[in-house]
């Protein structure tokens, strides 16, 4: 108990836990819209596409400041999203194929640039690899401040456009016919989702970020039939796994924070898929068995 309270009052722990909680909230909220729009995989595409941006930002500026690197990530992430949207709109290639294509090309470019950057006579590049797997434990207070600002902006915009995002996610064609420019809405929502992904890169990394985006939303959907409740629950689940993950990785030596956060949110998701009332697998099996029993007691045949 004593060690736990010592841990909780530890400054580094507080910083990392706060950052991870913020990440959970942001990815839970925006991930809900990504999942409902059937664009869950966008997270995977964008996060992989962010790698060349990170390395390019470093090569061009020589700086390893999070803001600079994430700005680069944001730019290539947006470029990838733009490319995917364009390919889907102007060809017969479908979303999943376009995504796989763009994602692997961008990630490949990122790896090439990363290898190249290590040959550059500047010993400063060692920290770039942290963006692949994430390195929450090196999070600084200024990183958390950056996350908090971005998160606040994201949440305010989401609340402002709540009605529009809801309509747009449910029935995009109808939204267009009653005069909401769906092109603009798509651009805005995609931008918010990309920004949410970029914010999480430093903590959980390129490879695991898509789980942070999808898992809280999928878990939350199991427990809710209203959009606001789903978004709220996704935020709570995301935040809870952020804090729990940080706690576990701080308590157990040698356990990396980002992956543990992802394991936590996955555990919540698996639990929700199994046990949620109504939508959960167990509940469905139960109702099925009950119906069978009733059928049998009423003398039904065919069992």
């Amino acid at each position, binding site marked *: 108990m004593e060690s736990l309270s010592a841990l909780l009052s530890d400054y580094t722990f507080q910083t990392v836990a706060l950052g991870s909680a913020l990440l959970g909230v942001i990815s839970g909220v925006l991930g809900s819209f990504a999942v409902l729009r059937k664009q869950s995989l966008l997270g995977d595409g964008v996060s992989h596409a962010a790698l060349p941006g990170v390395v390019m930002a470093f090569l061009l500026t020589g700086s390893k400041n999070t803001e600079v690197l994430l700005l680069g990530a944001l730019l290539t992430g947006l470029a990838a999203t733009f490319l995917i949207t364009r390919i889907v709109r102007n060809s*017969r290639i479908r979303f999943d194929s376009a995504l796989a294509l763009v994602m692997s090309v961008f990630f490949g470019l990122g790896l090439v640039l990363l290898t190249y950057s290590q040959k550059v006579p500047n010993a400063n590049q060692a920290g770039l690899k942290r963006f692949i797997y994430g390195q929450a434990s090196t999070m600084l207070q200024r990183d958390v401040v950056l996350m908090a600002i971005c998160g606040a902006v994201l949440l305010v915009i989401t609340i402002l456009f709540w*009605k*529009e995002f809801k*309509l747009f996610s449910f*029935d995009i064609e109808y939204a267009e*016919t009653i005069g909401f420019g769906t092109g603009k809405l798509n651009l805005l929502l995609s931008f918010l989702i990309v920004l949410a992904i970029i914010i999480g890169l430093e903590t959980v990394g390129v490879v695991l970020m898509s789980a942070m985006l999808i898992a809280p939303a999928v878990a939350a959907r199991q427990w809710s039939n209203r959009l606001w*409740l*789903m978004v709220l629950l996704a935020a709570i689940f995301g935040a809870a796994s952020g804090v729990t993950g940080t706690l576990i990785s701080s308590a157990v030596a040698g356990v990396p924070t980002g992956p543990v956060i992802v394991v936590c949110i996955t555990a919540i998701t698996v639990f929700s898929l199994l046990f949620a009332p109504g939508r959960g697998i167990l509940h469905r099996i139960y109702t099925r068995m009950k119906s069978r029993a009733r059928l049998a007691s009423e003398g039904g045949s065919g069992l």
Partner: protein
Amino acid sequence: MQNEDYAVEVHDLTVAYGTKPVLWDIDLSIPAGRLAAVIGPNGAGKTTLIKAMVGLIKPLSGGVDFSDKEIKNGRLRNKVAYVPQSGSVDWDFPATVLDVVMMGRYGHLGWFKRPGSLDKAMALETLDSVGMREFASRQISQLSGGQQQRVFLARALIQQADIYLMDEPFKGVDAQTEKSIVLLLKQLKEQGKTVIVVHHDLQTVADYFDWVILINLRIVANGLVGDVFNEENLGIAYGNRGLLTKEVT
């Protein structure tokens, strides 16, 4: 005919998906206050015509005019209500019946403004008119096909539009519901609204509608049911499926 007041006018409309034309040089006018059926075989371009009319499809050439210039210049798109096929959305979306019907008010509210108690009262009233009031708080994933269709209808009704464009509102609907929907459509017509419906059942065209548009890639006929809904035109629209058309006329 010339002096009749036209609600919608389609001129030189050609639409193609890839290299395949779906609508070819369509010219037609629909007078205001008519209850019109769009009929034609599968793949004739009925849905495409409706989508082009509500501006969801960019045509290769030509376009759609509304007599109301406010609609034409795009400022009052809300005056044209679109009822899509119910299969066009994912009904597993986390929303209630009331939520979806309220979306019909969003066009009036404009950007940012939230629906209020007045909108909610209107939504409940409209749900009542389609016989769905008791389902107001039901999760939309638990609706039958016919109920989904009526929810979409309510969403369009609450829009209080002048022109209604509906894509197969009778699909998956039982006989009783079909009757009540037809009654609603006739009420809209009596209020002076123009209603254009993609329809499949040739048997009921004469009972339900007073105007008919026969298409099959090109326009075959456009006019009063009594004038143009005959075996000759059906034969042209449906090709050599003579048996079917004989049964009807």
